[in-house]
């Protein structure tokens, strides 16, 4: 079984890549894998060859079929057609236990750990023969130290930060001595430093002959650590390449199938005007045991600038957004719009002050899944003077006009006119939800994770729209986990960590390293001093 099987992509790009791979032995060879869900062909005749000791990137937009493919490798899904051979032998992987038996391990994007148990207990739960707890604890300690992912077996998971929790998942995989590790967006929850640490581990695994199938949206890191990349689009393999010989832009255009417009921040410096939004020592207790408390958050947002708040997920971003939008009420003086204290005012009042909000979760928060797009426009604009409501009656005609306008301006693609929100793809719905607010030309816009899970094309469009809004004189606050995005669009950057916010500093003076240190707790100490 040779590497030539894999080279189904266009030869002009991957000629060099194949030589780069040729000295390796084939570990997994999938051919003709097909999986259908109802009308959707999630995987269409997919061929993929994984070599031993190779870090292999699986790239594609959301819905391109990456998860479906790896789930077939991991035994969670059964292919409708096609076959998988493992070490040259044809196998059928009926369930995850069979996959682990073969030596295939998987690290999920969302962890499956019991918070109330210790590290070693969690690991024991996943092993077929955990043996004595003390012996296992020793093994965990040695293996984790060996791979540069040190763990204390006795720690309770609930007390551990996300980066360490991911280590547990990885170590759990390693203990089963896998020949292939599948990782689904492993760095989305890590600080840059934590990600670097992970990359070292992956390199080492690869050197030992273990293969890694790596799913990520972060093209820079794919370029940095992956030996080979397979690109999926609409369930088909469209290209294979050596990512080290590509640019992030060329990888993105392969995924999207078209050139992705680069974002331009306009002419020169931002023309900064008056302060529009002020946060003063914003405190809020955690509403539930899983929420994060906000601790003395202060920030000034001025007209004409984009301020970005960086941070790893779950550090208080959602709570901060809710306090600014008015979904969570706080003391009046903690939030000021144009100098007016409004911490206890409703979201409708704030919208009438020409503020607009886009929450992180599009479906179920930003939009009602089972309602048509035109109805979803009424959701946030019923009281903003758009003539959508008169005498208590909703004007479907006006809502329909707005829907058409937003659809055109933001290139929202739909199979038929005015569909239910749930039927749109993530990227299209995000364009709609952002477009719905931008269409108002708000003076203050607060966006949480504007391009989370959105394909490259839509992300570029949204980012450009945010910059354009700021350049037209509005104040824009972006809360994001994506550092590439933040450095692309922000004029000033602050970092949130465990509910503390660092001072916003000019983006030009910020480095990724500094942001990473603030993410890892620097913001906290800074916040406490301030």
């Amino acid at each position, binding site marked *: 079984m040779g590497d030539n099987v894999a080279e189904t992509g266009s030869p002009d790009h991957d000629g060099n890549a194949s030589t780069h791979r040729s000295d390796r032995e084939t570990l997994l060879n999938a051919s003709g894998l097909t999986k259908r*869900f*109802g009308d959707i062909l999630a995987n269409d005749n997919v061929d993929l060859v994984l070599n031993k000791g190779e870090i292999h990137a699986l790239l594609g937009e959301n819905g391109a079929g990456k998860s479906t493919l790896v*789930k077939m490798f*991991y*035994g*969670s*899904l*059964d292919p*409708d057609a096609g076959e998988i051979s493992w070490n040259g032998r044809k196998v059928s992987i*009926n*369930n*995850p236990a069979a996959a682990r038996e073969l030596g295939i391990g*998987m690290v*999920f994007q*969302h962890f*499956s750990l019991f918070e109330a148990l210790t590290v070693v207990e969690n690991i024991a739960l*996943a092993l077929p023969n955990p043996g004595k707890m003390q012996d296992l604890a020793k093994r965990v300690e040695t293996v984790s130290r060996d791979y540069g992912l040190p763990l204390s077996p006795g720690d309770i998971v609930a007390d551990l930060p996300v980066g360490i929790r991911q280590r547990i998942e990885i170590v759990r995989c390693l203990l089963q001595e896998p020949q292939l590790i599948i990782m689904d967006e492993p760095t989305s929850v890590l600080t840059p430093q934590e990600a670097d640490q992970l990359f070292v581990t992956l390199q080492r695994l690869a050197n030992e002959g273990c293969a890694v199938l790596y799913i990520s949206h972060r093209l820079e890191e794919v370029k940095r650590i992956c030996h080979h990349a397979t690109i999926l689009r609409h369930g088909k393999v469209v290209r294979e390449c050596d990512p080290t010989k590509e640019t992030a832009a060329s990888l993105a255009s392969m995924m999207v199938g078209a050139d992705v417009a680069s974002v331009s921040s306009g002419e020169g410096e931002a023309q900064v005007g008056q302060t529009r939004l002020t946060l003063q020592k914003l405190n809020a207790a955690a509403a539930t045991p899983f929420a994060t408390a906000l601790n003395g958050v202060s920030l000034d947002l001025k007209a004409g600038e984009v301020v970005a708040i960086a941070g790893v997920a779950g550090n208080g971003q959602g709570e901060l957004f809710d306090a600014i*939008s*008015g*979904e969570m009420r706080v003391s009046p003086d903690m939030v000021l719009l144009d100098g007016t204290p409004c911490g206890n005012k*409703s*979201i*409708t009042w704030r*919208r009438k002050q020409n503020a607009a*909000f886009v*929450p992180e*979760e599009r479906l*179920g*928060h*930003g*939009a*009602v*899944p*089972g*309602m048509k797009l035109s*109805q979803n426009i*009424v*959701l*946030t604009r*019923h*009281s903003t003077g758009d003539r959508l*409501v008169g005498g*208590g*009656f*909703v004007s479907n005609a006006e809502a329909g006009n707005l829907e058409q306008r937003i659809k055109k301006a933001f290139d929202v693609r739909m199979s038929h006119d005015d*569909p*239910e929100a*749930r*039927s749109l793809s993530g990227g299209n719905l995000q364009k709609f939800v952002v477009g719905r607010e931008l269409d108002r030309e708000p003076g203050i816009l607060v966006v949480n994770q504007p391009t989370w899970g959105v394909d490259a094309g839509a992300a570029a469009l949204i980012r450009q729209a945010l910059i354009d809004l700021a350049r037209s004189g509005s104040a824009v606050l972006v809360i994001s986990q994506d550092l590439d995005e933040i450095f692309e669009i922000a004029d000033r950057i602050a970092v949130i960590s465990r509910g503390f916010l660092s001072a916003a500093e000019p983006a030009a003076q910020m480095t990724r390293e500094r942001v990473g240190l603030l993410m890892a707790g620097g913001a906290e100490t800074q916040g406490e001093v301030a």
Partner: protein
Amino acid sequence: MRLELVKRKEHSQAMALLSPLIAVTLTALSAAIIFSITGHNPLVGLYKFFIEPLTQQWSLEATIDKATPLILIGCGLAVCYLSNNWNIGAEGQFVVGALFGSVLPVLFPSFENAATLPLMLLFGAIGGALWALIPALLKTRFNTNEILTSLMLVYVAGLLLDYLVRGPWRDPGGYNFPESRIFSDAATLPEVFGGMMSLAAPITIAIAVILAVVLAKTLKGFEIRVMGESPRAGSFAGFSAKGLTLFSFALAGALAGLAGTMEVSGALNQLLPSISPGYGFTAIIVAFLGRLNPIGIIIAGFVLALSYIGGEGVQSAMGVSNEIASVIQGLLLFFVLACDTLILYRIRMVTKRSTSAEASHV
């Protein structure tokens, strides 16, 4: 071979209309099976149950009489269910409404003028609303489960009625029978359309139509639908979940209370230890069979009223227990809820062997 449910991308409009029809058909089929198991001719049984009541003037009038409270209560419940507030206690709100509405004719029988009836109806609505606000306040204040509290209050209301008609409100000239005095003419709901129906019926239809417009066209109706489907999105829209809980319970209670007052003022003309053959519970089925849409509820109200009359019909004609009506009502609710699945899912036959997928997490 096996069946699989596949999620649709959008709600199916066709299924939203078809699902109640399929449910009624399946219920009729099940009823036929029950008739034949108990040794009766299923076709005769179905005819007596579903068709015969529609062929005679008196049974048609009785059907309208029974449908009226079901429709009015069902409309209020629809508002609750649309906004995700599970009011199961309409039966109690119906009874307390009837008690409030009876205060004038029972305690002040000499207060007889043009204002008597309107005041009675107003009191009835207020009484039902107050009773319904108890579980609503418990929910908004203490996060209590409104299904339990509203249901429990049904029995409290029933006992309250029982106590009053046996004690303080008993008719002084009634030979100690547990019933209140007969209402005066001024306190009696007049009949309309040549005696075909009481005034309650046109009032109910008017309220249902108004409610249909409110739900479909106004911002309040929009708020109700948004809150029911996605409370988080509703709060993002600036709507108050607590406010809507209070509103929907008060509205449902008021309509149930109004129905209760109209029942005692029109059909019964006095208070009895029991004034409802379970209207408040049957109205739950009416609300769902009518797709939580007031116009649909008008139709569904007739179908369920038919089951009361039909139950009596098969009992007298065929000797089948009257309880068959409850069984058929229960089956109907079961099939309605089951068929509703088809609005957002479609059935697919899978013929190929396929190991079921383990959840993706280990």
